[in-house]
C-alpha cells in the first residue's frame, strides 16, 4: 500500500471513529423496557404503576388487572416521530515518521417515523372458590427499532512527512474525504404477554405476567464516499499530485430477538383514596441472532494508475443479552372523586447488562480482474461487552478496545408524575390528563455525569357507556455533549491524539390513540 493509501486509510478510520462518537445508542425510554402502553397512562406521564386499572394494566403492573370487574378489550395505536441530531468535530494527530493532523466534521440526522399498532389486549375476570382472578392476553411493541438515518461526513488531513529523517524524501500530504450514509431500519421487538392477576384480599392484589419476546428488524444501508489525497514533495521539484478514491457500499442486516421474562406486580388499596403499587420485571436472557452482509466497491484513480477493488463481507453473530431487572414503585392519590394524582419511580439495572456473542465473518477482498488478486479472510470472535453501550446503532458490537466505549454503564432511574381530572356532562365523561417525567440514561456525558431526558405529556379522552376513547401526546427531549480527548502513546516515538466534541440531541414526539371496550 502506498503512503497515500495509508493516509487515506487513516483519514477514513478517523472519520469512522468520529461517526461512532456521534452515534449514540437510544435512550432506555426509547428501548421501551420499562414503559407500558395506553393513551390514558401515557397522558399521565406514564405514572401508572399504582393506577393500572384498565386494559393496559398488564404492561405497567399486572396486579392492576385484578381491579377489573368486567371483560375488556383494548387497542392502542401509536405514531412516533423521533429525531436524533449529532454534530461532532473530530481531530486526531499522529506522530511517527510523519506528523499528520486530521480534522473531520460529522453531522448525523436520524429520523424515526412509525405508525403502527402498539398494544392490543383482551382481559377476562373470573372467580374460583370465591377468589377473583383476571386473565389477560396482550401484544405490545416493546422496542421500536425502525429509523431512517442520513449521515454526512466531511474531513481533511494534513500530514508533514519527516521521512527525510529516515532517508526518504520529505513531503506534505493532504487528504479530504466526504461521505454520505443512508440507513433505513424497519421492525421492532414485540412481546406477547399472558397475565394473571388475583385479588387475594379485597385490598391486596397480585399479578404475574409471562412475556414472550419475539421479532426483530431489517436494516438496509447504503453509502457513497470520496477521498482525494494529494501530496507535494518538499524537495526542489515541488510537484503536487493527487489521487481519487470513490467508494460505494450497499448492505443489509437482520436481527432477531427471542426470550422469556416474568413480571410480578402488587397493588394495595389501604383506603378508597390511596393506592400503592410495586412492580418487578425480572432479569432474563435474550437470545439474539444477527446476519450482516455488504458489498463495497472502490474505484481508484491516480498518477500511480487506475484500479478497482471490491469487498464482500458477511458476518453471522449469535449471542445472548443478560437483560437487567427493573423495579418500580408508585403511589396514586384521589383527593376528590374527579381527581387522581400519581407518581412513580423506576430503576433498571443497566450496569449489569452484558452481551456475550460469537461471530464468524468472511471478507473477500480483491480486484475483480484479474481474480488472482482476491483474498479471503475468515475471522471468529467470542467476546463479552456491555449492552447496549458497546453496540452500534445498527446493532453490531464495537471493537472492545475502543476507549470511549470502555466507559461504564449506569443504572437508569425514571421519575414520573401525572394527574387526571374528570369533567362529566350528562352521560359523558371527559378526562383531562397531564404528566411529566425525568429519565436518567445509562450512558454518561463527557465528564461521566448523568445524561437526563425530560418529557411532558398531555391527554384527553371521552367515555361513554362501555366505550372509552383516549388520546395522549408525549414530547421528550435529551441534550448532551460528548467531548472526548485521549493521548495514546504507542511504540517508540509514535503518539496518537484523539479529540472529539459536539452537541447531541434527541427529541421525540409520540401520539397514542386508545380505545377500550368493556363487555
Amino acid at each position, binding site marked *: 500500500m502506498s503512503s497515500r493509501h495509508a493516509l487515506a486509510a487513516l483519514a477514513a478510520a478517523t472519520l469512522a471513529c468520529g461517526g461512532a462518537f456521534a452515534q449514540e445508542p437510544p435512550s432506555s425510554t426509547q428501548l421501551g423496557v420499562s414503559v407500558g402502553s395506553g393513551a390514558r397512562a401515557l397522558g399521565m406521564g406514564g405514572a401508572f404503576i399504582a393506577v393500572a386499572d384498565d386494559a393496559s394494566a398488564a404492561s405497567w403492573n399486572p396486579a392492576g388487572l385484578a381491579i377489573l*370487574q368486567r371483560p375488556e378489550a383494548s387497542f392502542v395505536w401509536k405514531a412516533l416521530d423521533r429525531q436524533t441530531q449529532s454534530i461532532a468535530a473530530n481531530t486526531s494527530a499522529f506522530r511517527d515518521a510523519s506528523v499528520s493532523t486530521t480534522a473531520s466534521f460529522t453531522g448525523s440526522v436520524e429520523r424515526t417515523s412509525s405508525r403502527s399498532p402498539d398494544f392490543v389486549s383482551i382481559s377476562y375476570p373470573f372467580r374460583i372458590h370465591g377468589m377473583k382472578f383476571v386473565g389477560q392476553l396482550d401484544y405490545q411493541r416493546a422496542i421500536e427499532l425502525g429509523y431512517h438515518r442520513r449521515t454526512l461526513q466531511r474531513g481533511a488531513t494534513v500530514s508533514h512527512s519527516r521521512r527525510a529523517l529516515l532517508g526518504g524524501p520529505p513531503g506534505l500530504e493532504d487528504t479530504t474525504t466526504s461521505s454520505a450514509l443512508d440507513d433505513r431500519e424497519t421492525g421492532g421487538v414485540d412481546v406477547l404477554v399472558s397475565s394473571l392477576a388475583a385479588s387475594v384480599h*379485597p*385490598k391486596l392484589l397480585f399479578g404475574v405476567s409471562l412475556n414472550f419476546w419475539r421479532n426483530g428488524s431489517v436494516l438496509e444501508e447504503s453509502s457513497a464516499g470520496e477521498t482525494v489525497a494529494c501530496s507535494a514533495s518538499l524537495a526542489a521539484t515541488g510537484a503536487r499530485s493527487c489521487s481519487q478514491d470513490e467508494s460505494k457500499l450497499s448492505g443489509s442486516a437482520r436481527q432477531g430477538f427471542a426470550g422469556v421474562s416474568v413480571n410480578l406486580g402488587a397493588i*394495595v*388499596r389501604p*383506603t378508597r383514596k390511596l393506592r400503592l403499587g410495586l412492580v418487578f420485571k425480572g432479569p432474563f436472557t435474550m437470545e439474539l441472532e444477527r446476519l450482516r452482509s455488504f458489498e463495497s466497491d472502490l474505484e481508484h484513480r491516480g498518477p500511480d494508475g487506475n484500479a478497482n477493488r471490491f469487498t464482500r463481507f458477511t458476518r453471522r453473530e449469535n449471542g445472548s443479552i443478560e437483560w437487567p431487572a427493573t*423495579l418500580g414503585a408508585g403511589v396514586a392519590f384521589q383527593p376528590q372523586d374527579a381527581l387522581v394524582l400519581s407518581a412513580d419511580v423506576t430503576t433498571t439495572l443497566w450496569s449489569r447488562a452484558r452481551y456475550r456473542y460469537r461471530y464468524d465473518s468472511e471478507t473477500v477482498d480483491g480486484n475483480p480482474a484479474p481474480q488472482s488478486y482476491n483474498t479471503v479472510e475468515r475471522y471468529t470472535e467470542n467476546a463479552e461487552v456491555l449492552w447496549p453501550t458497546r453496540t452500534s446503532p445498527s446493532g453490531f458490537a464495537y471493537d472492545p478496545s475502543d476507549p470511549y466505549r470502555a466507559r461504564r454503564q449506569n443504572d437508569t432511574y425514571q421519575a414520573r408524575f401525572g394527574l387526571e381530572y374528570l369533567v362529566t356532562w350528562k*352521560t359523558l365523561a371527559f378526562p383531562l390528563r397531564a404528566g411529566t417525567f425525568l429519565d436518567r440514561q445509562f450512558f454518561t456525558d463527557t465528564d461521566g455525569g448523568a445524561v437526563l431526558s425530560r418529557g411532558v405529556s398531555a391527554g384527553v379522552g371521552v367515555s361513554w357507556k362501555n366505550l372509552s376513547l383516549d388520546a395522549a401526546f408525549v414530547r421528550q427531549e435529551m441534550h448532551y455533549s460528548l467531548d472526548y480527548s485521549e493521548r495514546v502513546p504507542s511504540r517508540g516515538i509514535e503518539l496518537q491524539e484523539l479529540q472529539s466534541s459536539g452537541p447531541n440531541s434527541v427529541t421525540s414526539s409520540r401520539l397514542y390513540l386508545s380505545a377500550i371496550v368493556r363487555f
Partner: protein
Amino acid sequence: MKLVRCAALALLFAAAAGAAEVWYEAYDAALKAIAAQQWPVAEIRLKSAIKEGPRPGRRVRTYGMQFIDYVPGYQLGLVYSRQQRHAEALEELRKVAASGLYADADPEAKAIAQMIQAAEAAVAPRTAKVDPPKPTAEPSPRATEAAVEPARATLPSRPSDPPPAPSAIPIQKSAEPRVAVVTPAMRPTPESRASTARPTDDRRQQALRAFFGGDYETSQRLLDGLAAGAAPTAETLFYLGASYAAQSFMSDTQRDQLQRQAKLRFAEARRKNPAFRADPRLVSPRILRLFEQSGS
C-alpha cells in the same frame, strides 16, 4: 433484594390496615344478592358499600374509566321493604327522594314515590297502634326535613343520569295492607292531585302501587276491572299483561296459561298504541321479553 422485601412488607401492612371490602365490589355483590332475593346478604353488602364508598350519585367512577349509577340508599330501601322493615325502608327511600338525585319528571322518582307510598301504607296502621292519640301516619314536615337533612347535605345537588334500573330488582309479594299516605317527601304533583278526584285513576294508581309493591294478584284484579271498562289505555293493558307475566314466573303449575294471558294483554296494548314502549328501568327484562314476543 432488601428493598423488595421492605416494599412487600409495607404493602402487606398497608393492606392489613385497610378496610375489608372495596365499595364498588360490595355494591355489585349487593345488586347480585338483590337479584337472587338474598336480602340479608344484600343489606350487609350495601351497608359496606355505603361505609367505604363515595357520595351516592350518577356517573360515579368505580375504577379506570368505568362509571356506575351509585344509589345504595334506593337499593337499601328496597331490601328493607322486602324484609317487611317498612319503617327503615321509608327512611332510606325518603333520603333518596330528598337527595335531589332525580327530577320530579324522572321515572325513577315516580317509582321511588310509589315505593314510599307503599311503605307508608304498611307503616301507617302500626304507627296508629303505637300512638293512639295521633290517628294520622303522616310525619310532621319538620320531622321529615330533619330526617333527610344529612342525606341532602352529602348527596350531589343535581344528577343527570338514570339510577340502577328498578327492573333489575325482583319483586316479592307483600301481605301488608296498603293505604296511600302523602308525605312531604312525596308531594303530589298537579296531575296526581287531579287524578285523586277520579275513581278510575285512583284504581289505576292503586293497581300500579300493588304492581311495584309485588302484589301482582291485586294489580291484576284491579287492572282487569279497568281493562273491562270503556277505553282502557295501552299502559293499563301493558301493566295488566305484566301482572300476569310476573305471576307466571312464580308459578310452576300455571306458567303457560298465565304467559298466554300476558301475551294477549300485551298484544292488546300494542293494538291500542303501536308506539307504546315500556320503560326498561321500571319493568323486569323478562317481562319486556314477553312483551317483545307478543309483537312478533
